[in-house]
């Protein structure tokens, strides 16, 4: 029995080895076809508003937004080993940047994106000083507490209309198509950010940390610095995404903007899609948005279904759908491998 088992294991290893050498997917992704495939995908995404109805466009918008949020959470949780439950801090900051720039001061909305990015980076740097002194689960709780504090502070702050929040009226003049292109820029932009990070020197350290952070440190990776870089980059993009999301939602309130449900969905997306992979958050975001839409009329029920899926995936495929797929065929659609 034991012999049979070890034989199967050997075969599996052999399979992984062969796959990693000459998988079909890799050939496709790295052959001459790669460029054309990407051009085709981009062309489809860019022309969605031309043939899709408003409902489909809105679903696509949600997918792109959640993909961006998932990518950024994955950068922290999947690579840097920073399990945050406080990414909603930056969504709120981004959303309020939009509200304040466009509503309070009547300035052009695009400026809000720059403000969102800048304030998020600043806030991330300041908050990192106490937060990074905490390790593991304390870091997780710390990030959450920061968000809760922000929610409380904004609810009692006259300058941001207390808990009443803002109607974001610029949205009224925007069509779904226009918002779609904003979402496209945010979604594809976040993907590009992650891809280029992973291809860079920083990415090499991140992949090493993902696999074994203690060993990475012994190999010369400065964990603190690398984590801080990820935290700041993730804050920046999440802040911009927050501004874009509230451009679509048209209404912002502290309880919603700084609510933990944002990060809960990010965690869900990354965990079911595949922690520490570029493809994971894409798969996760598509599944998450589809389930939510299908069960739109049963809000409580959709949470139950999402919960069951998450538990099933954690038990059956701890590395998510992408991890499961990679076990059988070595697919790297966004290959960040050095060779």
């Amino acid at each position, binding site marked *: 029995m034991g012999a049979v088992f070890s034989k199967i294991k050997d075969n599996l290893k052999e399979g992984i080895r062969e796959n990693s050498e000459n998988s079909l997917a890799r050939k496709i992704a790295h052959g001459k076809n790669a460029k054309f495939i990407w051009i085709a995908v981009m062309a489809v995404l860019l022309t969605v508003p031309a043939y899709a109805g408003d409902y489909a466009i809105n679903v696509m918008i949600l997918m792109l937004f959640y993909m961006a949020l998932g990518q950024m959470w994955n950068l922290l949780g999947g690579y840097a080993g920073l399990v945050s439950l406080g990414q909603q801090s930056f969504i709120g900051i981004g959303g309020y940047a939009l509200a304040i720039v466009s509503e309070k001061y009547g300035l052009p909305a695009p400026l809000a994106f720059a403000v969102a990015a800048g304030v998020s980076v600043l806030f991330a740097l300041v908050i990192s000083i106490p937060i990074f002194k905490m390790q593991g689960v304390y870091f997780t709780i710390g990030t959450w507490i920061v968000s809760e504090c922000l929610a409380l502070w904004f609810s009692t702050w006259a300058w941001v209309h207390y808990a009443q929040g803002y109607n974001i009226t610029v949205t009224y003049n925007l069509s779904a198509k226009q918002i779609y292109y904003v979402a496209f820029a945010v979604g594809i932009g976040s993907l590009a950010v992650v891809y280029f990070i992973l291809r860079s020197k920083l990415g090499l350290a991140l992949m*090493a940390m993902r*696999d*074994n952070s203690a060993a*990475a440190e*012994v*190999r010369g990776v*400065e964990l603190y610095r690398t984590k801080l870089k990820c935290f700041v980059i993730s804050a920046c993009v999440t802040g911009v995404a927050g501004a874009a999301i509230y451009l679509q939602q048209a209404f912002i309130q502290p309880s919603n903007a700084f609510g933990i449900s944002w990060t809960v969905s990010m965690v869900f997306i990354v965990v079911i899609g595949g922690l520490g992979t570029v493809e994971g958050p894409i798969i996760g975001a598509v599944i998450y948005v589809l389930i939510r839409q299908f069960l739109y009329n049963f809000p409580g029920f959709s949470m139950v279904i999402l919960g069951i899926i998450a538990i099933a995936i954690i038990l059956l495929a701890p590395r998510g759908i992408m991890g499961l797929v990679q076990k059988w065929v070595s697919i790297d659609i966004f290959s960040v491998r*050095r060779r």
Partner: protein
Amino acid sequence: MDEILRVENLSIAFGHNRVLNDLSFEVFENEVLGIIGPNGAGKTVLLNVLTGILKPDSGRIVYKGKDIAKTKIALRTRMGIGRTFQVPRSFEGMSVYENIMVGGVYGRLLSEKEAGAGADEILEHIGMAGRRGEIAGALGLLDRKRLEIGVALASKPDLLLIDEAAGGLTESEIANILEIVRGAKQKGVTVIWIEHVLQTMLEGTDRTLCIAEGRNVICGPPRMVMDSPEVHAVYLGTEEDE
């Protein structure tokens, strides 16, 4: 011969358990110093202190004339102290080549291009040429141990600390590891090698240090140390009155 490392009165305790007890010894440039000792003698703790994973309670670690007892882990690697772990800690999701890259890029601050250019030589050295694309997580034990040394060598260490590379390997596999360590020595690397397998100590080291209960029991030529009554006493206990 100049000394590259001098350990002075190093002590560390976990609660009441003093694992290193005023331990002192020195390592000379380009020698292979073997360290033996019974389980719990403090061998791995010593390596953890030398690499900065553990902080000593007292004592000095003088590396190339500088006290590095307070230097951070990553910086010690960049100063030229490489290390392998008893249970290999390869980056399992990454390829053999990428594992080696991490060593060069972060352990020696090379560009990816420079680290990549040196990778072939290292793969050759550890006997894994032509296997750069394999995923580390799918490697067998010998390959992982070889890769572990390869990643450490990629940071071009002046001092290489090896923690039980031969444990769990067959005789011919051990010969393989011996060959790799000899190759490193030829390139001018100084080696501290912890091992239980006595064959490797006799064949692979220039001097052997025996520690027990965190103290320096005896240090000298391998054969002499192995045959010494002190080492016998440590491993087999002293005989009671006859």
